[in-house]
């Protein structure tokens, strides 16, 4: 079976490659950049025209270059114990290793500012060490918990976010965003333009609404029209540049190409028999794994979180306070993907929408923030009639990954279905 990649995928990758190349030149030429965690308000940096490098993306790049083994072994040599989270710390270890020539791009220069949210306990520690190593100031966002969480959060997140995320939490986040804005104004010499920011936030909502269309089309298509390994870059590269002209244009191009594929009856697997969802972040050091069961079992991954989360996790009614709407987008961004009751209820809803038969669930035992809630999710999915296969591995650490063994394990489970 020959799978034809989307043109949009090539375009997204090409754009990102050029952007990264330009960024590298800009950074090495002395341009300021921010190193930020994925669940921080990137929008503020974009609005202030300060380029960002995202921690988890950089971590995935290091893993994709098959460098995680070296760095994680180095972490142990440095005295960090072997059970600490890896996804969020791999870039820090590469920095502390002190040999930029080994890193992708020849390493990152010192950022002008670091930014993280205290959602997961290790974030403030990892970023604090990075700050000590580079001298870059650290801006931390608090992450108070949500009392009495609403299980069907996505029903409320767009319009009723004030109640869903709680007024006191949003007040605090807006306060902390204003502090960050003041820092960025001082660093860049620019003034934060509130009117322009409102337009920018509307553009992001527009972009995410396009992704929602794509999500609906793929969910309802008779057979999966594209691989999740293509869904991910076509969503995440524009998300990186969210609200920009290019991102909106690309989202539309992606939607149109997917629509054409569906109309033409194109399928990843002509003989699609099993529809699967990949739960968790990517398996960045072995993304080919996503295609491993197409020929043998007619089993296709139709779902990964990145596309459907574009709508549920990002679209927020803006009203007359764009900063507050941004706080509503960010203040529980990561938690909704990993913690009960949000994750289990959302996964069941998604599995139903996508007519999923089997869920492969990545359980990273040493990245506990991402692993919490896995068993509640398993229970909920199984109650909904979906077979769940746990993949005990890590997003970036391939040291314990035995591809052959894992493929055999999954195949055995799929044998019982097909």
């Amino acid at each position, binding site marked *: 079976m020959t799978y034809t990649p989307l043109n949009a995928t090539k375009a997204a990758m090409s754009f990102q490659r050029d952007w990264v190349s330009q960024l590298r030149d800009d950074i090495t030429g002395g341009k300021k950049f921010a190193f930020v965690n994925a669940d921080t308000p990137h929008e503020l940096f974009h609005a202030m025209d300060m380029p960002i490098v995202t921690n988890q993306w950089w971590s995935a790049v290091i893993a994709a270059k098959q460098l995680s083994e070296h760095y994680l072994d180095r972490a142990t040599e*440095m*005295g*960090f*114990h072997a*059970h*600490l*989270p890896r996804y969020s710390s791999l870039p820090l270890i590469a920095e502390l290793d002190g040999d930029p020539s080994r890193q992708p791009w020849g390493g990152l220069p010192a950022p002008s500012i670091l930014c993280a949210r*205290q959602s*997961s*306990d*290790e974030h*403030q*520690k*990892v*970023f*604090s*060490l990075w700050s*000590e190593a580079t001298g870059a100031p*650290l801006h*931390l966002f*608090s992450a*108070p*918990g*949500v*009392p*009495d*969480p609403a*299980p069907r959060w996505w029903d409320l997140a767009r319009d009723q976010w004030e109640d869903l995320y709680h007024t*006191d*939490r949003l*007040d*605090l986040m807006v*306060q*902390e965003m204003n*502090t960050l804005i003041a820092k960025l104004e001082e660093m860049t010499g620019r003034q934060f333009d509130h009117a322009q920011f409102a337009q920018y936030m509307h553009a992001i909502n527009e972009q995410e609404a396009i992704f929602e269309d794509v999500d609906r089309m793929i969910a309802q298509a008779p057979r999966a029209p594209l691989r999740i390994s293509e869904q991910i870059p076509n969503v995440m590269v524009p998300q990186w540049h969210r609200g920009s002209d290019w991102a909106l244009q690309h989202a539309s191009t992606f939607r149109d190409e997917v629509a054409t594929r569906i109309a033409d009856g194109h399928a990843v697997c002509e003989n699609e028999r099993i529809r699967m969802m990949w739960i968790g972040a990517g398996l960045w050091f072995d993304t080919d794994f996503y295609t491993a069961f197409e020929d043998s079992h007619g089993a296709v991954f139709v779902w990964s979180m990145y596309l459907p989360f574009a709508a549920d996790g990002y679209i927020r009614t803006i009203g007359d306070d764009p900063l507050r709407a941004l706080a509503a987008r960010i203040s529980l961004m990561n938690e909704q993907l990993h*913690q*009960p*009751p949000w994750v*289990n209820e959302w996964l069941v809803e998604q599995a139903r929408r996508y007519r999923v038969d089997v869920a492969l669930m990545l*359980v990273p*035992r*040493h990245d*506990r*923030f991402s*692993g*919490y*809630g*896995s*068993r*509640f999710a398993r*229970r909920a999915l199984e109650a909904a009639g979906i077979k769940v296969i746990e993949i005990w591995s890590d997003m970036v650490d391939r040291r314990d990954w035995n591809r052959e063994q894992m493929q055999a394990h999954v195949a055995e489970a799929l044998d019982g279905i097909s």
Partner: protein
Amino acid sequence: MTPQSAAEILDSAYAARATGAFADMVGIFGEGFPEPLLRAAGLGPICVHLNPATDDVDAGQGVSECIEPFVDHAVRRFLHRFAAGRYQGLKAIIFCRDDTAALVAYQYALEFRRLGLAPAEPQLILWNLVHAAHAHDFNRQQLDKLWQALDIPAPSESALAETWADECARMDALAALDADMGQGAVGASTAFMWRIAGRGMDGRQHADLLNCARPMAPRPASGGVRLGVIGSAIEDVAFYRTIEAHGTIVCDLQPMIAAWPVPLPPQPTADAFLRAAASDVACPRIVPPNAHADAVLRRLADAQCDAVICQLHAHDDVIGWDVPKIADHLRDLDIAFINLGFVDPLPDTPALYAIGAALGADLKTRGLA
């Protein structure tokens, strides 16, 4: 009251911690809650993460199968007790968000209840104190919400003043106990038990018992090398006794010791209590984040340790980030750093034997035995 009877009361209270009658009691899960505020409001805090192992229950497979193997030991044990109805009768359970385990305990407890796997009582309350100076207005709102949730009025100024005075007495008595430990006059195992014993007592009672019992507190057996202890929470006095066979623990910074009680303010107002709690460097989530490790290093240096013992839970994802930095700084101070690796919070006899053997061998190699 004689020193002997005071010591017996403290020892008994340690053995019976977190058990007993629940009338007008509020459960606390995690470190960092400003308990004097609750006491001033007429309620007694009871630490639901400190139950002895003999109090453990199995709430069944429905609960077990939803708790991943990497969930904290204390959370797992609490959830089983909670689901089995062990805490019915408490007015509420408060979960301290900035404790590294408590948010998960709160979320899982709520979920078990939602799924019908746990009883509907008691009320579960998330205590969202943010450990950062800029968050005082937010923290003040959390306190107002707490009184609303508990359906009680905020404590009066006079009640706050009275509780504050009692808690100052407790702080003074604990400081004297620590000083005795630093001078080798009280064993760390005794200090551990007597401190934990007071978590269910009001400040004045605890202070009176400590002040009375201290003169006849058991001295550490071995003497010799001065040891510090850092790392994850240790729940069992047996660990201390194992360490004490090889030296004198003069500085104990494990979270159950270092993080309770939370610091007291200079004045007895609710705002001052909140500010003092929010600036507690014993909280690993404090802002700025390096404040926690810096405070650990200061205290170890002040205690003039010869060696510092580090032990961590296998699922630690916080303290381990500070370990290389602490080890480096101690090396600069010519203080030995002995990393025992992963240690269970309730180590069994073979594990304790292994810990003792490893520590003894390490100290001998360094010429400190």
